[in-house]
């Protein structure tokens, strides 16, 4: 084998070594580096999170309790008919107490599940009274029955007299929320 052949052989050997040893090693290192970066970032994030653990635990407890309490505040609607009667009764009573008259109360649709163990159903309520009694009645209702959400309102005065005691008719679309199960919360 001549010297130039030997040299060629050497060059071929070196190229082969680069192709089959050096490059794979470099690839492997690049992968390792990427993994290292990821893991290090994860460690940093995790440590930051762990540092906040006491605060987080406290917050979690508080918020979970609050969520439970708020959910518990909704009335039990597992007995659909009873619930409807109860709600309707309460609305009529509150409004009547403020001197209004409920001229129409009609449930608009079947109850619908709304997540978080809550079901909602809409109703249409026509109320006649004066501006003053209507306002007081609705505000009182909002206070006493926080599970009622007012969707839509239409106020029509019955005559053209000025003043607070003008008779008027208020049409409300309301959405009544209730617990589907006996226990609610998480």
């Amino acid at each position, binding site marked *: 084998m001549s010297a130039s052949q030997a040299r060629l052989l050497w060059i071929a050997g070196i190229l082969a070594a680069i192709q089959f040893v*050096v490059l794979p*090693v470099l690839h*492997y*290192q690049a992968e*390792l*580096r990427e*993994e*290292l970066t990821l*893991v*290090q970032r*994860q*460690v940093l994030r*995790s*440590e930051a*999170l*762990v540092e*906040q*653990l006491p605060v*987080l*635990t406290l*917050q*979690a407890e508080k*918020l*979970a309790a*609050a*969520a439970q*309490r*708020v*959910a518990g*505040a*909704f009335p039990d609607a597992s007995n659909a008919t009873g619930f409807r009667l109860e709600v309707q009764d309460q609305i009529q009573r509150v409004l009547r107490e403020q001197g209004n008259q409920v001229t129409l109360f009609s449930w608009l649709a079947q109850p619908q599940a*709304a*997540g*978080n163990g809550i079901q909602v159903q809409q109703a249409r309520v026509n109320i006649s009274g004066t501006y003053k009694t209507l*306002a007081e009645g*609705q*505000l009182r209702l*909002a*206070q006493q*029955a*926080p*599970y*009622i*959400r*007012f*969707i*839509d*309102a*239409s*106020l*029509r*005065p019955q005559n*053209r007299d*000025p*003043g*607070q005691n003008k008779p008027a008719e208020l049409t409300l679309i309301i*959405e009544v*929320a209730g617990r589907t199960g006996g226990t609610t*919360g*998480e």
Partner: protein
Amino acid sequence: MTTTTKTPSTPTLTGLQTYLAKFAWWVDARGNQRKLTATTLAPAKAERRLPILVVARDGYQERWEQFSIRSERELKRVLTLRDAGQPVQHYIGKLHNGQRQVLTVRWHDVVLATVRNAYVAFPESLVLAAAVDAGLTHVQQSGSSYFLLKQSGGHWQSLPASGLVATSDRALLALGGSAATPQQRLDSDAWRLALLTGLQKVGLDAWQQSWQSQHADTSNADNFPWRPTWVGVGVLTIVYGLLSTGYLVMATESAEHRLESIRSDLDTALSAQATVNNAQQTLTGLAQHQSNIAAVDQFWQSIADSQTLNILVNSAVSDYSSVTLAAEGVGATNVLTELLQRDYVDSADFTAPVRSQPNGLERFTIEIQLQPTLDADVPESETQP
């Protein structure tokens, strides 16, 4: 170096010259070595190679030739072929009018061993010519005497003194200089300094060509320790590869270990966070079903304001994010302006053109966008049905 007597000119040496002086050796025609700056002979240690060697004028034969070969490489090849195996150095000059001046230096046998032992060997006349001004220079020191004629163009020639050429005038004639050529003599101190200056000024080309001449006969490939170099590079590469891979592996493992060690705390934290998120979502969801008392309040405020502004509301329709008032009254634009100043009003505008009626009243419709309320987002508040 055993005993050194510094020449008087030593203190005037520049920095580079002192540096050169440390490495520059000189060999006379009888093969005696000494440092260039030393006055006494001192053979270098046999094993050591001399870094820079200047060979006395008597130690070589100098020949000038002209070649009309443009390529320096080609010319070098021609010269190498011609003088193959002979103890010569070639200094190829710059291309000038299509010609190249070539100085061929043929070492005498006496100095040959010393020359072979040097990394870079210069003929004395070449170095001196780089130092002196144009003119005839007569060098006379330690039994050697020769003349050097340097033309104003830079070309030079030298001639050892002999019985025939003993005086400067004779030398001028022999070298072909005109009678008006300025002349100077160098004694040994001035000569020594001139050589140092010459080494500094001789130019990179001369250094390179001397180096190449010195190493032409011994082929580069044989001389350079290729094998150890390759082995070293290979070993370094492997060690680097191993070390860097090892570092990466260890760093990754330690990071993973760290992650593992806080795993349980992390799980707790994550579940706590999940609880927080869940609870927040639940609260937000529940809030959507809670009474929107603030919006109800806003609606009735707009009705109350319509009363204070003395307008007659024919109908008020609201979806609790906006209120549309259809009304009659005096000064519709004034009413709108007043309403816009209320803090529960986000924006308000007429939805239809204002119509004036025969009775002097204006009929108009105003749509009020209510200020967004936060009445539902009260997770902490106690809400009792």
